[in-house]
């Protein structure tokens, strides 16, 4: 067939059908004309070729081709066809409120602590040996599970979208289940080190620490599927139910709650909650309506590892920035660990500033992915890069400014309000006694929130390497600052590390995010 013949053939109806067949071959169930336009463009269709087919441009051609797609897609694929809104407004207060749902377990936990003095694995009556064991267990659980949760979140949503039950099971095994096994191994290593080598803590609290590490990790990993599925009501039922049980327990113990009995039932309750999460995930949340895929679709283990490794490594560095200051405050750099109550109290209150920042992060990211990108893609072709970049940059700057405003409000509220709470309630007196420490921790967590915001937006561009670099730069700064301030004692060393680490993470993340948005192209579909 000569070029001339092709031109003549494509000028007719046949050319449109060829385009439709090509699109379905690449993308069996395109959601809208935008997606069709992207596929056509990647297949070499240009504006000139679109005009040859009788359309004004690529988008117009895509709309005509999209209308033909049902002829070539399978019956099930046809059900997947759904229109999406192509007009978008910036995220508003409702989006922000929806973003708060992501922090709901944390908020329930904080509310329970304020009401009854007891939370899921902390309380205001814990004795030193229990506090040491449980805070170490929490640190291990966060550090080890962080990478696996990040990796799961990234790939599970992908396979849920594909309707691939087999790969969903596989990715759950290699992330969440492996994460639990890794945490159990880390917990056993910590148990052997503390109980067998260092003889630190008591025999019962050493065992309790192992149980705490496993059950806390199991709960965190178990909740991952709920986040992927956005099953916040279910999270509320499980976490709220657990909180209700705790409050009932405390109210029925009378004037004295034995801290050993309390922590034993706290950890057992967390284990039961975790078990419920896992069972609900397996039988309900991670159940997709499809059969297993053909073998050729199954990526190799190494390919899967390459895909999730950047997210996992990012999760490790991020949670290290969160967790390491707590360990440093307990004397990590002096080769020991004893729970530092003033640092735990002030940093535990200061970290509340992350709640509105996390909500804004979720609102901005979900809006970008679900509404803003489709809207832009309906207006711009891949070739119209400059206009697209201007829009992306503007969106990025606006959302960063909103984040900055929230940070100022949240930071001001904590720095001014928390010491007053400390002066009112004896249980919170450390807040009034250490206002400088509280302020420094607040600044540190505000930086962390900014870094998190930039990282999540970059993830939405399928750009995991810049956040990875930012997080590890932050971790390096944390280590250097903590070591440099070690002479001033564990508390100063910890807070210096937190502020420096989170600060460097935030600065690098803002820088790389700005660079990424300045150079953005229509890479949104790389996420598919």
């Amino acid at each position, binding site marked *: 067939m000569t070029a001339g013949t092709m031109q003549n053939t494509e000028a007719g*109806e046949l050319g449109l*059908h*060829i385009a439709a*067949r*090509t699109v*379905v*071959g*690449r993308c*069996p*169930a395109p959601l809208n004309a935008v997606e069709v336009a992207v596929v056509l463009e990647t297949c070499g269709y240009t504006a000139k070729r679109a005009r040859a087919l009788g359309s004004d441009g690529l988008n117009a051609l895509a709309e005509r081709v999209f209308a033909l797609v049902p*002829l*070539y*897609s*399978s019956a*099930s*694929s046809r059900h997947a066809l759904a229109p999406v809104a192509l007009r978008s407004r910036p995220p508003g207060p409702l989006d922000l409120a929806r973003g708060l749902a992501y922090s709901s377990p944390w908020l329930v936990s904080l509310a329970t602590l304020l009401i009854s003095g007891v939370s899921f694995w902390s309380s205001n*009556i814990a*004795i*030193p*040996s229990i506090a040491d064991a449980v805070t170490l267990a929490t640190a291990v659980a966060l550090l080890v599970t962080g990478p696996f949760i990040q990796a799961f979140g990234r790939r599970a949503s992908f396979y849920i979208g*594909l*309707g691939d*039950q*087999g790969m969903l*099971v596989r990715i759950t*095994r290699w992330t969440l*289940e492996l994460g639990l096994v890794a945490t159990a191994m880390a917990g056993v290593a910590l148990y052997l080190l503390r109980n067998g080598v260092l*003889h*630190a803590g*008591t*025999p*019962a609290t050493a*065992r*309790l620490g*192992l*149980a705490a590490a*496993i059950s806390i990790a*199991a709960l965190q990993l178990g909740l991952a599927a709920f986040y992927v599925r956005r099953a916040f009501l279910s999270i509320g039922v499980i976490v709220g139910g657990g909180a209700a049980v705790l409050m009932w327990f405390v109210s029925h113990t009378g*004037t*004295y*709650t*034995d801290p*050993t009995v309390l*922590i*034993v039932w706290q*950890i*057992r309750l967390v*284990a*039961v909650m*975790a078990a419920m999460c*896992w*069972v609900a995930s*397996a*039988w309900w949340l991670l*159940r997709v309506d499809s*059969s*297993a*895929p*053909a073998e050729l679709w199954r990526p190799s283990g190494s390919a899967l590892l390459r895909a999730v490794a950047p997210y996992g490594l990012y999760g490790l560095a991020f949670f290290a920035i969160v967790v390491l200051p707590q360990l440093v405050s307990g004397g990590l750099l002096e080769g020991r660990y004893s729970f530092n109550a003033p640092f735990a109290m002030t940093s535990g209150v200061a970290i509340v500033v992350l709640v509105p920042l996390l909500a804004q992060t979720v609102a901005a990211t979900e809006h970008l992915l679900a509404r803003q990108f489709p809207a832009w893609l309906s207006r711009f072709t891949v070739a119209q890069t400059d206009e697209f970049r201007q829009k992306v940059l503007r969106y990025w700057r606006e959302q960063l400014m909103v984040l900055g405003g929230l940070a100022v409000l949240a930071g001001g509220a904590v720095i001014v309000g928390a010491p007053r709470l400390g002066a009112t309630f*004896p249980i919170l007196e450390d807040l009034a006694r250490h206002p400088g420490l509280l302020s420094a921790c607040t600044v540190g967590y505000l930086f962390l929130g900014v870094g998190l915001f930039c990282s999540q937006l970059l993830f939405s561009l399928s750009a995991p390497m810049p956040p990875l670099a930012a997080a590890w730069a932050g971790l390096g700064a944390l280590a250097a600052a903590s070591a440099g301030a070690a002479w001033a004692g564990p508390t100063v060393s910890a807070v210096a590390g937190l502020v420096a680490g989170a600060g460097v993470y935030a600065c690098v993340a803002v820088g790389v995010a700005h660079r990424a948005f300045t150079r953005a192209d229509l890479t949104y579909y790389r996420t598919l």
Partner: protein
Amino acid sequence: MVVQLSPVSPPAYQRTGQGHDRRLRPRRGARARANLWRVEVTAGALALVIVTVILTVWPAASPARPMPAGLTLTRSGLAMADPFSTSTPDRQLLDHYVFNGSAAPGVGWVSATSGGLDVGIRSHRDWAGWFAVTLRAAGPDVVWHALMARPSTPVGSGVGEAVLAVQSASTQRNSSINYVVVSALASGGKSTWQIGSAHGFVADAVTDRLWQEPRRADAPGVEPVTIRTDGHHSLSVWFGDRLVYSSHHLHMHDPPPFQAYLEVQGRGISYVSNFKDFWVTDAAPVTVTGVAPGSHLTLQTGHGGVRATADSSGHAALQVPPPESVGTATLTVAGRSGVRRFPDLHYAGGDVVHLTGS
């Protein structure tokens, strides 16, 4: 239309079956494999709960008490017991006690040896103390006991005090420090034993002295102290079998439950309190069930015998004096079918023991 019947171009990826969406074609065994995974997760979740329960079993606050053949302990009245007769690492003690006090870190110390639990304080300038407090709380209807000793060496300059206090556990919630106390106070070469009731908030409680022995150089250095109180109006204290103080008309505002403080206080000297045979048990009688009605029961302790007769439901209540609420005795049950003896019975007030094979 021709195009619809016969596509003009082949599928983009023939081998993967794209264009026919092969993903949606059921693969043999896929559903079974997914269900198997779900069962695995469910079994794993169950295992998680079981492992957590096993790992979080806390050591018992009292040693196991094997019963003689023919008797079954159906309810234990013993809340806490620690004979302090063996050397025990501090980290093991901390499963049941918390060490704390007004003394600076490093000044106060605790050590459990075969000679008992030593609670000590190193030489320091100001009045300060150190204690081992039980994590468990008990009361109101319980008896507290410890063999309590101060150093036999007379105190010349400075002051030393060995203390056994029964304090309201509500300190945890409201920071009030209300307690009853038995102490051995030594200074100026003489010493004395005292009983008091104290009230305070956060620190520096004020003690009302209820009873005191005359100060003398040859005051006993060791006393088996037994305390029973309701925290409100009633307080009784025994030294050995001797009731040295009892009143039911006090106003102590010391609400139950209580914790025991094994404590030392002092100024200007190093001082050590020593405690052995520490126990806390219900003030209720030892009840024997499953006995033939009308049978006569005797619990022969080292201090005499306690007798009871089984009622029509086969229950017999053996009311042991508070100082002897915990110990080893021989139980004798005499009925129509003969006499049965159960030597080496480790009993405690509030125990319910079932007689089998009667």
